[in-house]
């Protein structure tokens, strides 16, 4: 399975990549590092409490859905407020 194709970054994230029976945590770390580089996400920092795992899951889905609106990329609505405003 040398090449896999995805219609979206979410589909790519959900894809299983069974590489080998050999435990290979380094492969997992490399894969995550690539994913984080391609699809960076920033979650609001802090501690959030949930009564059950379903509540936690809903919170995650809500956040991910809000990110899908802008393709997962932070869009600066007003460039003057962005990092280039000092140029």
């Amino acid at each position: 399975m040398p090449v896999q194709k995805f219609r979206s970054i979410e589909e790519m994230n959900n894809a299983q990549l069974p590489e080998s029976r050999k435990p290979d945590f380094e492969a997992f770390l490399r894969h995550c590092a690539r994913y984080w580089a391609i699809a960076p996400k920033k979650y609001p920092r802090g501690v959030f409490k949930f009564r059950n795992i379903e509540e936690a899951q809903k919170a995650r889905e809500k956040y991910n859905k809000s990110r899908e609106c802008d393709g997962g990329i932070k869009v600066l609505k007003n460039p003057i407020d962005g990092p280039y405003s000092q140029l």
Partner: protein
Amino acid sequence: MDRDEIIRVLRAFEEAGLEYVLIGATAMGFHGLVRATQDLDLFIRATPENIERLRVALRKTYDSDPHIDEISSADLLGDYPAVRYVPPTGDLYFDVLTRLGESASFETVESEIKEIQGTKVSVATPLALYRLKKNTVREQDHADAAALRKLFNF
């Protein structure tokens, strides 16, 4: 977040003597099933002493982030058995569980010790992961369960 951050936090868990077991995609990674994730899921033993060990480990990793003080025994041992901590780096978070429904907890999830860069890591066994994932409503868990079943012939 980079790969070293995960190693650092796992090392801090070991140094603090945290009683935990990794579940989720991180645990699957240890068993050779690789997919990307944004969270690190773990069960911890539900005692005030162990929750303090968790805080100690996270403070060490995240430069005494003041939010860590909000992780409380009252919550994790009471009405909020699931606590999500998003560290200052913000691109990966921790889902800390003391129990899942009525049946799953640190005590009931079978684990084994793995090692990464000299750090011992407590990881749910493939069968324990399969049991956790096969009956949930989450689509991703079904895919994970199917992959575990296929790889380990469950």
